[in-house]
């Protein structure tokens, strides 16, 4: 018994040394500089980019992380100015409108080159738009090109000869596009990846024009025309792009490389930022925001975003088939309070579907938080003080944030109107199915604009629109959006028509606007030229790194 004590500790210490060995296996000792320090020295931006991209083929993928990488690798005919969002030259050095805005002629920059040194030509665009619109490609964003004559008919197989589609290469550097009607936002769409050119010979080397899953976008295969070229793509780990030698505006590009990290876990992303492994985070965890906001010299940047959070109403299902009930519900949501408490000031109260200041368009505020009037409307509809109320259900996709908002609104309706509401959640794809089938009474919805124009929000609610989901239908509204607004001669006239449409929509209230989204990022002080804008659209060409700047004291 006496001898046991030292012997067991011998055993224990041998176990302990085994652990140390195991740990040594994992490490190869050595401190290190952070990514930010080395990045600032070498001109490498470390960028948190949401999820692993589905792919990098501009005519195949959809989504925001894809957008960031594709727009580093490729460039459209026109790009958005990161401050004003107005179009500025990209591949096209200038463009002209003729035939009252129905024809646009793009003059391509002869210096615009593919990453293999070849010139980007007008016929590359014709080939690429054929691919983007071909029914076999299955391009989910093909509708971006629908303003072009016969584009929609070609996609739907009604026109089979692409020569009938309104896009012609007049010579190597002149591209003529004919539109169905003047479309003021069309040049803006040239910065959307679904309208980008791809290098025809490269694609054909790996398969047919319309193939979705060839390896042409892999490192070593891909030929692109943007400010950067692809040098590494490690699945779920990182994507590295480096400055292109052939890009026409290369003298303006300050960064030597960008590393995109798929960061699914927002909490890990914030931690990486704190230890200077990232220059930029895609999002900020909601519970950390008050902390960051109160910090002196905070790296937290919040800006309005072109997106609206709203509730869809099934206008055919009682009790919300009555516009008075819908209005009563809309008027008894205290949005300011919701934004202040649940959303921690990270959103802006919304009273219209279109976000304010969408390229100078300010939607009218047609109603306000007014419980008094809401109760009157509800009584008028036959439910005085909520008597005889048959019940109502709010549907949302499973998510803590959506749940909190639904609970808050449930409370507001209960206390202001005296009506009972149930809330129910469904897993994402099940929820999408319910929304598409319009199988709900009230459902949570968000819409993020594809381009900066009120049309992108208001045309959701045309009769039988794919994203209408409310059964709202008014021929006068359709006429305003589809025929009158496109024919407006001035911006003022056009915006007046949008105001009229917005008024009609809020009269019938098939949706309850709740808030306007914001973009939220942590940006290291060494990063310059990353401007906040409504599209949260970055142009890496303008980004610079300034060494020697550090995170605020509170974070170190």
């Amino acid at each position, binding site marked *: 018994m006496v*001898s*046991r004590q030292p*012997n*067991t500790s011998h*055993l*224990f210490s041998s*176990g302990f040394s*085994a*652990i140390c060995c*195991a*740990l040594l*296996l*994992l*490490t*190869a*000792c*050595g401190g*290190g500089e952070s990514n930010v320090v080395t990045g600032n020295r070498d001109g490498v931006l470390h960028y948190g980019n949401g999820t*692993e991209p*589905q*792919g990098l*083929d501009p005519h*195949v*993928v*959809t989504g925001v992380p894809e957008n960031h990488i594709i727009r580093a690798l490729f460039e459209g005919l026109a790009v958005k100015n990161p401050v004003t969002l107005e179009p500025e030259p990209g591949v096209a050095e200038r463009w002209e409108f003729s035939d009252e805005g129905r024809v646009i002629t793009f003059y391509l920059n002869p210096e615009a080159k593919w990453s293999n040194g070849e010139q980007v030509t007008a016929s590359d665009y014709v080939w690429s738009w054929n691919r983007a619109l071909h*029914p076999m490609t*299955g*391009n*989910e964003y*093909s509708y971006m090109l629908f303003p072009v004559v016969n584009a929609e008919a070609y*996609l*739907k*197989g009604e026109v089979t000869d692409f020569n009938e589609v309104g896009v012609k290469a007049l010579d190597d550097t002149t591209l003529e596009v004919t539109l169905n009607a003047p479309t003021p936002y069309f040049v803006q769409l040239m910065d959307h990846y679904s309208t980008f050119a791809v290098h025809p010979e490269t694609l054909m080397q790996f398969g047919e024009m319309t193939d*979705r899953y*060839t*390896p042409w*976008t892999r490192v070593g295969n891909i030929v692109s025309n943007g400010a950067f070229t692809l040098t590494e793509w490690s*699945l*779920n*780990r990182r994507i590295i792009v480096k400055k292109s030698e052939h890009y026409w505006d290369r003298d303006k590009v300050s960064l030597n490389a960008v590393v995109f*990290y*798929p960061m*699914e*876990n927002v*909490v*890990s992303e914030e*931690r*990486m930022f*704190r*230890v200077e*492994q990232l220059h930029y985070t895609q999002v900020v965890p909601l519970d950390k925001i008050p902390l960051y906001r109160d910090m002196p010299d905070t790296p937290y940047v919040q800006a309005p975003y072109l997106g609206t959070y709203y509730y869809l109403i099934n206008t055919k299902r009682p009790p919300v088939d009555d516009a008075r009930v819908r209005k009563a519900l809309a008027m008894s949501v205290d949005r300011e309070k919701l934004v202040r408490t649940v959303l921690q000031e990270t959103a802006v109260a919304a009273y219209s579907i279109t976000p304010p200041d969408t390229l100078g368009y300010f939607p009218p505020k047609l109603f306000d938080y007014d419980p008094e009037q809401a109760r009157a409307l509800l009584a008028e509809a036959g439910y005085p003080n909520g008597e005889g109320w048959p019940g109502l259900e709010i549907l949302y996709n499973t998510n803590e944030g959506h749940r909190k908002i639904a609970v808050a609104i449930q409370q507001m309706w209960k206390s202001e109107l005296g009506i009972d509401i149930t809330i129910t959640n469904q*897993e994402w*794809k*099940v929820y*999408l*199915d*319910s929304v*598409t089938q319009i199988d709900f009474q009230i459902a949570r919805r968000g819409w993020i604009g594809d381009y900066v124009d009120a049309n992108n929000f208001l045309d959701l609610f045309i009769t039988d629109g*794919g*994203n209408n989901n409310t059964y709202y239908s008014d021929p006068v509204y359709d006429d305003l959006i589809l025929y009158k607004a496109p024919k407006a001669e001035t911006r003022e006239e056009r915006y007046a028509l949008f105001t009229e449409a917005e008024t009609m929509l809020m009269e019938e209230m098939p949706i309850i606007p709740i808030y306007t989204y914001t973009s939220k990022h942590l940006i290291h002080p060494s990063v310059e030229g990353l401007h906040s804008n409504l599209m949260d659209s970055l142009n890496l060409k303008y980004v610079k790194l300034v060494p020697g700047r550090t995170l605020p004291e509170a974070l170190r």
Partner: protein
Amino acid sequence: MLRFMFIRILQALPVIFVVITATFFLVRSAPGGPFDQEKVVIPEVKQALEAQYRLDLPLHEQYLAYLGDLAQGDLGPSFKYPGRSVNEILFAGLPVTAELGLYALIIALCIGVTAGVFASLKPNTAQDYVPMSLAMIGICMPSFLLGPLLVLVFGIWLDWLPITGWGDIPGDKILPAVTLGSAYAAYIARLSRAGMLEILSQDYIRTARAKGLPEWRVVTQHALRGGLIPVIAFLGPAFAGLLAGSFVVETIFQIPGLGRFYVQAAFNRDYTMILGTTVFLSSLIVFFNLVSDIVAAWLNPRLRQQFQGGGS
């Protein structure tokens, strides 16, 4: 022994077949499809997409076609990641997840066996209660709590170790391996304590002690081999569990392994990916169970004799 292995393999095949069939029809019965998005997809585009992935065929034909491809080792193209096959994604993530699982298992074994043996030497004393209480906490503490806690202490406050990545910065493998291994360390500690307690009361141990052997030789040379049989039996399922269950640790530490794809595939309705990962992981579980049965049989003299007697 060979016959035993052969029978076990034969038993495993129908299990895997049932897994494939059940998974195939279950994922198809869930509402929503891989091409449903928040922004509605134009019907013509959706048709083209479904045709490219054979979703326009009747379900039984899709099933037979899938089985045909599977027989040739082809798990099909991913729906979510156009341009990548399920095989490619699996084989990109597997080495990382396997490496993480292996380190976690090594850590779990070192800590677990040491603590378990240590505790078994003086049962019902502080030497027993302290490691066993720690083991209980280890079992109860989920990795989504332990991981961020370790990151906070060792990564941010002390600034000793990197907090994310895999093989990018020296030392970045330590925290994920410890996080993943700790729950298993706790199980192993309890198993080895129980195993050792049983063995230490056997006659042959008393004989060894009576011979005057020092206690550490009694433990390491005589007791350990028998005492660790429950641990060995646990290792097979544990390793398969580590591979399948590394999702949380992989997201916390940004590790490019399999776990993330496994979980996201279900949310994305990435049919081929769900099937591929399920078939792959269920085969692994069956395989590791088989291996641990064989090792346990080989370690246990009585079982070994049984095979030799019955098998010849």
